[in-house]
């Protein structure tokens, strides 16, 4: 039996090897797609296996690679925390790789997919290496590997201006984040071994470092904001809705499902493992950022008409939802409430796993729609349920799961988060006592709004009549794509029906990080009952609820099914209105109008209506032109001034540049004089 570490390392090497092989096979595109996707799927399975067994084993394995700079070897470590995230990566990598075998065929004859496959595998390897690395140096290298590979994936279709812009914004924000992370590591390394030498760069040295509370807080928040830039926490989320829609859908599924989670991993690693939570306000701040992110994310998601952009904003929301229990876990840890902290931590991990699965499913579904119709704009879609017999129900599973409804998985993690809120005792800080009820309220709001958002997405895209201009022939997608989605959908159901298995499996992580565990109490009443603390406090039996739903729907169907003889098809009634056309349907914009009106202050909305007619347009209109543009206030007030200031500064600095050698020589001479004067 190979060790988990060995299996994961084999998987990393396999991914790198596949990417090299993909370069060599560039001539035979059709074969390359099958070859590379199959191998990636197998390599992902290895990662899944290694990660899963590592959490099961519950022990840490370390290793040292004597490469890199002299005296600075790479440290590697596989403990249950990285094991959990590797499992998520492997699971999604497997689904998405199977899916890619079908999805990438859409590019055949249009453009070469070689670069996509090369960077796809480097991206997977990069993510695994981030999770494996145990020193700041190797971590940053892997982090940059992941960022660079995903940059090339985002600008895969680089002939479009929009894609290049999105990739640029992504790279920019990723690097601002990377600098902050680097600074944080620098601080911690400095406290570990002094600022004069480099020996403090390994995480094991940082763990034992004595850091003063003020510097620990600074280090934590540098790391938090650095990772937040990658995770898409408001106000650093602006790259997400730009990059995800333009990336190929299999890549969006991985970026949203897995890459955002590596940032959460970073927060957990630095906050819980290296620094160890000491101050309650760390958790309070993380919780507040989570709440703002969740609500802002879903409100913007509701306004989108682009299917993938909507999903991207929903990822922002879900990152917020992940940060909420994480913040709670930090608060509980700082007050020594280990059991509650373990509950909140389990909820965090559960939601990380769930979001990976259902968001992966939804992005794959969006990719299937894109593949079949070449259209991302919901306003030009509709009625796909009649044409895409497989994709439609699978996408529906994703929608129900993400809206937090039983029997699917989203409900279980949201249930656990609500339980963490409800079990909170009165805390010694008044600010927290205020924040916790408010937090529960905002979480409830964002969950309810997300149900609304996904009714819109599903209703406008798959239901009603086709809204497109011309009659495109739409076929459902092929088997590899279906298989990827079916497995993800099945996973949604499984995670929703058997939560105890997952809770028992991840239990070792809260034990390691916060010193408490809930596995035993959660399963105290048997495998069917999820009882976080005690049966009297709260219990949920997912298998019974699932079988109850199936049973009652079955009975209701048998008892009241419309008799086949009498059920007949007729034209739409619609209150007696005649000639209902496709253009009279509700559109995505009209569906979200009430929310736009209620929460209008959150958005920057520019709405214009132009009525034209030959004469007296106001009374005899011939044509209405309605235009609406919705943007982030954050973009206008936060990013635009910075961008303008940096351009202004560049122009000023640019005056120094004349292109004449004499002037440059003069600069060098003056610098030399200055140095001599001051030295």
């Amino acid at each position, binding site marked *: 039996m190979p060790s988990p570490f060995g299996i994961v390392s084999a998987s990393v090497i396999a991914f790198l090897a596949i990417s090299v092989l993909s370069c060599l096979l560039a001539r035979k595109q059709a074969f390359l797609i099958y070859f590379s996707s199959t191998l990636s799927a197998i390599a992902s399975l290895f990662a899944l296996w290694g990660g899963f067994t590592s959490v099961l084993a519950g022990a840490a394995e370390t290793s040292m690679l004597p490469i890199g700079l002299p005296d600075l070897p790479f440290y590697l470590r596989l403990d249950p925390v990285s094991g959990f995230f590797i499992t998520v990566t492997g699971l999604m990598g497997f689904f998405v790789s199977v899916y890619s075998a079908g999805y990438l065929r859409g590019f055949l004859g249009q453009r070469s997919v070689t670069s996509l496959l090369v960077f796809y595998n480097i991206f997977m390897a990069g993510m695994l290496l981030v999770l494996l690395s145990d020193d700041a140096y190797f971590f940053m290298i892997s982090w940059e590997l992941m960022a660079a590979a995903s940059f090339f994936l985002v600008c895969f279709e680089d002939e479009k201006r929009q894609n290049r812009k999105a990739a640029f914004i992504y790279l920019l924000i990723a690097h601002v984040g990377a600098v902050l992370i680097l600074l944080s590591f620098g601080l911690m390394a400095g406290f570990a071994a002094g600022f004069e030498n480099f020996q403090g760069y390994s995480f094991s040295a940082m763990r034992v470092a004595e850091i003063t509370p003020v510097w620990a807080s600074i280090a934590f928040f540098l790391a938090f904001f650095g990772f937040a830039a990658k995770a898409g926490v408001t106000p650093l989320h602006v790259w997400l809705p730009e990059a995800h829609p333009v990336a190929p859908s299999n890549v969006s599924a991985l970026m949203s499902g897995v890459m955002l989670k590596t940032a959460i991993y970073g927060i957990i690693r630095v906050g819980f493992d290296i620094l160890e939570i000491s101050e309650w306000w760390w958790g309070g701040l993380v919780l507040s950022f989570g709440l703002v992110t969740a609500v802002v994310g879903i409100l913007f998601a509701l306004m989108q008409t682009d299917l993938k952009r909507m999903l991207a904003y929903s990822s922002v929301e879900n990152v917020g939802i992940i940060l909420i229990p994480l913040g709670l876990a930090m608060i509980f840890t700082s007050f020594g409430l280990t059991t509650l902290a373990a509950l909140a931590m389990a909820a965090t991990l559960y939601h990380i796993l769930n979001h990976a699965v259902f968001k992966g499913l939804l992005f794959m579904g969006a990719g299937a729609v894109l593949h079949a119709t070449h259209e991302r704009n919901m306003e030009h879609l509709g009625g796909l349920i009649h044409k895409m017999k497989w994709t439609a129900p699978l996408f529906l599973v994703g929608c129900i799961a993400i809206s937090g409804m039983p029997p699917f998985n989203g409900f279980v993690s949201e249930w656990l988060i609500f339980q963490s809120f409800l079990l909170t005792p009165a805390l010694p800080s008044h600010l927290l006592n205020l924040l916790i*009820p408010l937090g529960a309220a905002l979480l409830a709001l964002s969950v309810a709004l997300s149900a609304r958002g996904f*009714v819109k997405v599903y209703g406008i895209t798959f*239901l009603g009549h086709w809204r497109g201009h011309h009659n495109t022939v739409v076929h459902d997608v092929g088997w590899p794509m279906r298989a990827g989605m079916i497995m993800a959908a099945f996973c949604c159901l499984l995670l929703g029906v058997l939560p105890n298995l997952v809770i028992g499996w991840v239990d070792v992580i809260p034990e390691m990080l916060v010193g408490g565990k809930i596995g035993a109490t959660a399963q105290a009443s048997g495998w069917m009952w999820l009882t976080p603390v005690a049966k009297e406090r709260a219990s949920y039996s997912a298998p019974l609820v699932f079988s109850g739903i199936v049973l009652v729907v079955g009975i209701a169907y048998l008892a009241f099914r419309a008799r086949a003889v009498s059920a007949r098809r007729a034209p739409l009634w619609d209150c007696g209105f005649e000639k209902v056309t496709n253009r009279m349907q509700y559109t995505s914009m009209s569906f979200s109008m*009430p929310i736009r009106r209620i929460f209008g202050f959150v958005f920057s909305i520019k709405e214009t209506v132009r009525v034209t007619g030959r004469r007296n347009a106001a009374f005899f209109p011939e044509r209405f032109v309605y235009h609406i543009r919705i943007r982030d206030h954050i973009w206008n007030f936060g990013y635009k001034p910075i961008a303008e200031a940096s351009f202004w500064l560049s122009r000023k600095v640019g005056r120094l540049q004349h292109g004449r050698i004499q002037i440059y020589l003069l600069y060098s001479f003056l610098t030399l004089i200055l140095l001599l004067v001051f030295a």
Partner: protein
Amino acid sequence: MTRHYYPVLIESLQVVIVLLGAPLFVGWVRMLKCWTQGRSSAGLFQPMRDLLKLHVKDTVLAENASWIFRATPYIIFSATLLAGAIIPVISVDLPLSATADIIALVALFAIARFFMALAGLDIGTAFGGMGSSREMMVASLAEPAVLMSVFTVSLVSHSTSLSQMAHELSISPFILRPSLSFALLSFILIAIAETGRIPVDNPATHLELTMIHEAMVLEYSGRHLLLIEWGGMMKLFLFASLGIALFVPWGIAGIDNPAMLPVAVIALVVKLALVGVLIVYVETGLAKMRIFNVPEFLGTAFLLATLGMLSYFMLE
């Protein structure tokens, strides 16, 4: 009758009460409304007769209705019935109550609404879309409010399991708690919105500008409509009995106390009759409000519920 069968008996009795009590309760509300408006009423059993009529009628499906449209009635009916199986109506000895707590209860109602809204969009009419959009607007504000309101009760009773909550509150002495008062006030406002009553929605209207729920079910007929109507009636009944179980549980049968059952049934009937009076009082006295005043109404409810929870953390 051994003790082993007692919970099963309670559960079956409860399901029967929910199934049959719902149309009767709606009949009672309509009867009272007729009386207050000086009309003669069709009697307590008219809703039941309506359901029976729908049962024998043919079902007409729109040409482009998909499987979502056909599955929705069954899902709505089942989700509502399941919700009915976990709210303690006559006894806290409800075995299924432990399978799903209040959070799951809210989620069960959410499933029903999710599919209802999808069915509204499925046929592709303007009315259907309008109904869905409005329904989801109301729901997205009402659902957090209902969660906050029941959370306050669950904080007071230290449980989220419904029968445990009802039990805890029925044996505790009556104290006027600020948190519970806020929660009750908010619950009443939301229950009106969730069950589609005046002033948020009018269950009797087919006027295009004011429809919410009715706009989504326009294309349904026959047995499909039967299930949706019955589900709607059960929802009203369940919100009434949820309010009773959470805020005035006194009289509900305790653990292992079959002798209490007749009293519990009588108590339930009396309380529901009073709730009916309250509904009719509100509906006769108020006009339906403009659709864009609804957010303010629900915002108030949400704020009240949050205040209730805050006051629990701050004061109790």
